[in-house]
């Protein structure tokens, strides 16, 4: 199970590589050290965010607690891009919701149309049947 509480190595090394120029190599132990550092960072930020949430008598960690925590830990330079990131995800969420509602409405309309079509089919069938009967009687 220890595997599940570690960050995936492939993704971590992808992030490391994208932060470095192409022709630079990374030693294996520095990769390990960086992956460990990332895990400790998560614990570090979480612990500090808990302090902020508890200070305002809450048991839930909110985004503002995370932002205050990062500021407190002297990494305030991250907060600008983090706030941007937060804005984009809330926007995409809104869009998703709107899309879902839109799709639902469309589906409803489609169902209505289907029902109408069914009714029409029934009518047509009834007509067909009657004409068939007429044909039969003619013969």
């Amino acid at each position: 199970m220890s595997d599940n509480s570690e960050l995936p190595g492939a993704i971590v090394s992808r992030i490391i590589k994208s932060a470095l120029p192409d022709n630079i190599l990374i030693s294996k132990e520095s990769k390990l050290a960086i992956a460990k550092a990332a895990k400790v960072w998560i614990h570090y930020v979480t612990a500090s965010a808990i302090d902020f949430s508890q200070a305002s008598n809450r048991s839930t960690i909110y985004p503002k607690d995370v932002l205050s925590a990062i500021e407190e830990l002297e990494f305030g330079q991250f907060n600008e891009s983090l706030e941007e990131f937060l804005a984009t995800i809330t926007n995409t969420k809104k869009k998703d919701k709107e899309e879902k509602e839109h799709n639902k409405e469309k589906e409803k309309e489609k169902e209505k149309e289907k029902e109408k079509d069914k009714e029409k089919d029934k009518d047509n069938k009834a007509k067909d049947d009657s004409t068939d009967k007429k044909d039969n009687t003619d013969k």
Partner: protein
Amino acid sequence: MAKDQDMKDQEEIEDIEEEEEEVEEEVEEDEEEEEDEEEKKTSTTTTTSTSKKTSSKPTAATSKSSATTKKSRSTVTQLPIARVKRIMKSDKDVKLISQDATFLVTKSTELFLEYLVKEAFKKTVAEKRKTLSYKDISTTVKDTDPLEFLADIIPEKVLNQ
């Protein structure tokens, strides 16, 4: 008035719990993605969890293309949100985490990694080397005040021998 506030808080928390269930669904997908990647790297591993999901796994021929489409789907963060959340929850004091807070921590981890690597790389450049070595990281940790929290897990190497 205080009661009203309590009610509101309660509602908010319930909302969050609902959101969390939604996340849990995403989580499964994320994990599949990871497993796909791990499998590519080490095809001989016999992990227990991968065997569970063999049914939903694409065939070897199509796995590459599907992996790329999956990547384009999770453009929000590179790191798996589920993992980050699990690591956060391993702290005993954590009770509830809002979904956006998890997103933020995940994103901040990516930013932090980038920061740490770039700082360490400055040392590599200063010594005109082409490999980022452990020493670059450990000296960065020692020299940078905000990184002091890493001093225990990334110590400066004591001379070998």
